[in-house]
């Protein structure tokens, strides 16, 4: 971005801003233009830029404060006597199954959402009629606008009951896989249901990033491959997808970050117990960190509260790492993409 320098060269740069508004300056004596000394930076400028820098730094401070305050309040839990913590175990064996559940649910969501989001993004960027494309994009964005608690209600009362027959089918025909071991939960409020709800919730952000990347594909490459007789699918496979590889990776990581931190939908949909289980259709599921905090927080006090906050710190660290890597990939891409656009 070019930055015109306000205070260099121009004869009136030392005058207060109001002076330039009057047309009468022409009649004033010429010695007005003789500068006595180099003017200091205007007070307004100094205050304003100071405020801007301050707001920027506040962002850094806020992020640091999140980590620091969670650490202060969570620290007692790391060294607490196991008998005081939930389930009479030390902190790490308390948070372990939760961490497993968090990652497991997020991975299920990601496995469902990644191919779907690539498909949707391709549909909007390369298949849908130009005129409709933007409207269809809004429609997908609406999915992101629905509050997570409403997704939770929908998951309990619509998705879960409708998923039970599918789960029974999976148990009957794919029961030899450890994931579909069963017995099928009668309510349908299982890990797979939670993963489905999460998948729907992370679709919009993943689709948005994928769409952006697909649209950045160099036009000339696309046209060249079409001119050589490629079908649309071949054009996409040979120019769009290779170009978008890193973008797809980072959109998946963004989706992963969202899915890891999603609280209410999981807390409502999943009927959880304190286990580690790979079975995605039975009624014994591990909870997630976020859901566990939301469910236990109102009834907790003392050292248990500290344990919940410490588990929140673990979640913060994990999501921060995932998001940081994803954004770093996107930003590095952005710098390079100008070269071959």
């Amino acid at each position: 971005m070019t930055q015109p320098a306000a205070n260099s060269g121009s004869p009136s740069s030392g005058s207060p801003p109001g002076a330039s508004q009057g047309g009468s300056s022409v009649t004033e004596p010429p010695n007005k233009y003789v500068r006595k000394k180099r003017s200091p930076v205007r007070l307004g400028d100094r205050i304003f830029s100071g405020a801007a820098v301050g707001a920027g730094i506040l962002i850094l401070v806020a992020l640091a404060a999140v980590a620091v305050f969670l650490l202060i309040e969570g620290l007692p839990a790391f060294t607490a006597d196991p008998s005081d913590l939930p389930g009479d175990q030390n902190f790490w064996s308390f948070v372990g199954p939760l961490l497993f559940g968090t990652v497991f649910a997020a991975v299920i969501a990601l496995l469902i959402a990644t191919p779907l989001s690539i498909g949707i993004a391709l549909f909007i960027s390369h298949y849908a009629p130009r005129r409709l494309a933007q409207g269809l994009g809004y429609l997908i964005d609406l999915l992101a606008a629905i509050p997570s608690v409403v997704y939770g209600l929908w998951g309990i009362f619509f998705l879960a009951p409708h998923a039970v027959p599918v789960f029974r089918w999976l148990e009957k025909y794919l029961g030899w896989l450890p994931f579909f071991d069963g017995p099928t939960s009668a309510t349908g409020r299982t890990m797979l249901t939670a993963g489905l709800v999460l998948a729907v919730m992370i679709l919009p952000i993943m689709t948005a990033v994928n769409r952006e990347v697909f649209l950045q594909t160099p036009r000339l490459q696309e046209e060249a491959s079409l001119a050589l007789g490629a079908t649309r699918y071949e054009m996409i496979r040979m120019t769009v997808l290779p170009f978008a590889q890193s973008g797809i990776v980072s959109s998946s990581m963004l989706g992963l970050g969202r899915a890891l931190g999603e609280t209410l939908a999981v807390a409502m949909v999943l009927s959880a117990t304190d286990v580690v289980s790979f079975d995605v259709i039975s009624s014994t599921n591990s909870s997630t960190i976020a859901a566990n905090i939301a469910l236990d927080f109102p009834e907790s006090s003392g050292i248990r509260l500290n344990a919940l906050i410490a588990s929140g710190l673990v979640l913060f660290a994990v999501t921060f790492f995932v998001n940081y890597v994803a954004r770093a990939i996107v930003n590095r891409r952005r710098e390079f993409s100008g070269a071959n656009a």
Partner: protein
Amino acid sequence: MTTISPPPAEVLEARKSLTQGQLPPWAQWSMVSACLVVGLLIGLTTGFSTALALVLGAVAALVVVPAVSWGVEGVRRAKDRLATLLVTLAFVLALLPLLSLLSTVVDRGRHRFDWKFLTDDMNRVVGEGGGAYHAIIGTLEITAAATIISVPIGVMCAVYLVEYGRGWLARSITLLVDVMTGIPSIVAGLFAFAFFSIFFGSGIRFGIGGAVALSLLMIPVVVRSVEEMLKLVPNELREASYALGVAKWLTVIRVVLRTAAAGIATGVTIAIARVIGETAPLLVIAGMATRTNYDLFDGRMTTLPVYIFNSNANPGARAEFGLERAWAAALTLVLIVLLLNLIARVISRVFALPTR
């Protein structure tokens, strides 16, 4: 000396028509609809569920269209058509949950979505009746407070990034703002709780804490969207202002921000729509109450999302009334969010910068 022999008869025959060896343009979608209709008919006559019949129809289309195309057009076109169908299917699949969710919410929420629901609170209500007035007030107050906190910070931060920011500080702020958009909402709530309980003692619950937690989630959204808008302001406008001798800070306020005002309003509305549905942080720091509490700084405050969560988790002795209230509140919340999104679109459409 080689002689050029005329092409054999079958090649000449094949060249008769340019469109030979291709399916006509209407063929693909008519085959798809035929598959769906047949699936639906079979479903209706044999008593399958309609949904299952449609799924079978879609699968049949995925097989029939490429097969026919393979026979007529060859394997490359067949793959192309399969890809087209799959991509379209992905989009349709994504719309299904949206439609199902909206119709479920409207269907179940309309029973109690009445004036009494909007004007009563839950004080001394056990079974039938009651409403969400206290939750609506709580939502509006906490969201307004969060907006008041985050908009100035967010706008100034975006001004810094676009107008002043250079070097490592600006780069790291940009990256961290992006990272901040991914902070789990429950972590924001825990932060507000940890922060305020150090100053006010453990067990603190009040509305303003919720506003602080929400603004932590809202600031990055505001920064992102305002930054995009400020970048759209043509540089000529800034240069013209500088050339007239206007100070930089006045230029930013009166030229840059004013030009981008519509975009900023859109971005802020979208940010409000995003945080107004947040439940987890408010569950942690704002708590739950049954009476209307107007005071942000004292006492527990219910918001609509927490109200929904609680009406579902503890529906009371007669569960059906609690659930009806939960759905009615969900309908209210969805309406508010959709309305905010609509307002944002209208603002950006009506007050858009004139494109030259």
